[in-house]
């Protein structure tokens, strides 16, 4: 009888486990195909791949793809661009978002506060294709707003071939598109601060500016640190849309607009240089992996609640 009971319970348990497993199965299959098979496919970087031979029959070539990649200046250029742009985005993006978040929080639940939140988030909802159109409306050499209205035709600049300006332009476009989004994230952090602290400070005669510097900013610090660590974990990846769409594929700008992601794409699709492209991709995956794990490890130590896993 006892044996029978446990058997039955076991059976029921297994049936539940099986059902739950079946529920998860479609999603698992998708991740297996979309994410895991390509991971296993990184061995392509160690082959002399040709479409005619396919991935199995293309000959192995050891590390020669990597050797060729790192002999060229490309490896240095794309690494530098990816890292420096991300660094600028992290520093300037954080400063601007925290600034905006503090201002937005001041207006709180008021109607104008909500209105500003919505307008500042709006650029984030547009695609990079549309963003490229907007930038073109501003910077187009013959009919752009900047050349016609701000500079005048005599002082016009051919923006899409003047690479000196692009580091600034790309940072501005990034901030325009993302600062509002991150500001709302930080605003939620500020909203979580105990209101009594502000009230106590007010009673003690602390003005608004003083409150910001001695309450809001210190209390927001953990959130800023976590968000920054997460961004550092992604520092080897760039936003393909920003660097591919916004400069309009202008070759004159590649030296300052080419990142690892655009390089991998152009190598694969535009130059048919799969060797270099796959080597750069693996380089990104490997270093990116180390950085994400490291960043997450530190986050976990500082604040287990916010760790990814």
């Amino acid at each position, binding site marked *: 009888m006892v044996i029978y009971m446990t058997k039955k319970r076991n059976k029921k348990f297994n049936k539940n*486990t099986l*059902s*739950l*497993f079946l*529920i*998860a199965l*479609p*999603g698992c299959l*998708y*991740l297996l195909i*979309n*994410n895991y*098979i*390509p*991971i296993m*496919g*990184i061995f392509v970087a160690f082959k002399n791949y040709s479409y005619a031979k*396919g*991935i199995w029959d293309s000959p192995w070539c050891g590390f020669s793809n990597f050797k060729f990649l790192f002999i060229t200046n490309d490896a240095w250029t794309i690494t530098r661009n990816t890292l420096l742009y991300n660094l600028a985005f992290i520093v300037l993006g954080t400063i601007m978002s925290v600034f905006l978040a503090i201002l937005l929080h*001041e*207006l709180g639940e008021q109607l*104008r506060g*909500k*209105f*500003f*939140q*919505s307008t*500042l988030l*709006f*650029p984030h909802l*547009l*695609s990079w*294709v*549309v963003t*490229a*159109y*907007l930038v073109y*409306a501003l910077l187009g050499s013959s*009919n752009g*707003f900047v050349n016609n*209205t701000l500079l005048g035709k005599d002082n016009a600049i051919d923006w899409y071939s003047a690479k000196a300006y692009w580091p600034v332009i790309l940072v501005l476009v990034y901030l*325009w598109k993302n600062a*509002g*989004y991150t500001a*709302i*994230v930080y605003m*939620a*952090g500020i909203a979580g601060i105990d209101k009594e602290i502000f009230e106590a400070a007010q009673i003690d005669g602390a003005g*608004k500016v003083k409150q910001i510097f001695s309450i809001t900013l210190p209390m927001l610090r953990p959130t800023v640190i976590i968000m920054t660590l*997460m961004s550092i974990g992604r520092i080897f990846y760039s936003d393909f849309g920003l660097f591919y769409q916004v400069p309009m594929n202008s070759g004159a700008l590649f030296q300052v607009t080419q990142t690892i992601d655009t390089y*991998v794409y152009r190598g694969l*699709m535009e130059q048919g240089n799969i060797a270099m492209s*796959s080597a750069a*991709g693996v380089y990104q*995956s490997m270093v990116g*992996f180390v950085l*994400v*794990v490291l960043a997450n490890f530190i986050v976990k130590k500082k604040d287990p609640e916010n760790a*990814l*896993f």
Partner: protein
Amino acid sequence: MKSMSDEKRFRLIVTIILTLFSIVALFPMILLVVASFTDENELITHGYQILPRKLSLEAYSYMVKQASTIIRAYLVTIGTTIAGTALSIFLTSSIAYPMARKNFKYRNALSFFVYFTMLFNGGLVPQYIMWTTFFHIKNTYFALVIPNLLMTAFNIFLVRNYYSNSLPEALFEAAQLDGASEFGIYTKVVFPLSKPVIATVGLFVALAYWNSWTNALYYVTDPKYFGIQNLLMRIMKNIEYLRTGAAEMSAEGQAVTLPGNSIRMALAFVGILPIVIIYPMLQKYFIKGVVVGAVKG
């Protein structure tokens, strides 16, 4: 009394600064809309402006004449958005549910399986080779819906957290006592209860599909599969692409020149029109979604 007026003054300064930032945020958009209504000759002589001297509906009337290409792209985008969002919601919530069930033996293994996709990816090259040589999705509608966008680990964890935080274990036990199977619990109890998180995730997934252009960039060469974003990309390079069939001729037998500068902007405006219309109604949910997403990452 003094502190009140201080507070008011502070709020006024805040309002002024935020107004300036809001103008910067919206300015390019306003420029684009005005440009789409500007007379073509005016654009050629004075460029895109906020206050043009001469307005015109030429761009829009031209678009109406050449509507078939645009309507087609619009339908492709609408179709991929609907199919992609529906599939995405199904897959995301169904993998998140077992991860949230405390009595599921393999929940940690499953969570790690999902989590690992955030840490490591094979990159574009192996992915491209796989989709094109094994699954042959080049120039199919699958190419627009399936790769990359369907499911992200981030959304899965968002839904899982919602399940484990807002659905008590007692609920599952009660349903089980009533004789419901796991499938039954998932479809009849859990899924209906998870509307808020599904709506949030669905909203952002739908937006991602509406704005997506990379899948078509990688996997589509036949313009017949172009959605609105890829049509826009194509037209930025070559406005003549809009002409369908034989170029229309003027009375003198010359090909009519397109009002290209204004058409480009008009088409971009048409491409974001749904967002512009929906956003004021759903802005609350967009903002809530940003905040919810922020909890993890």
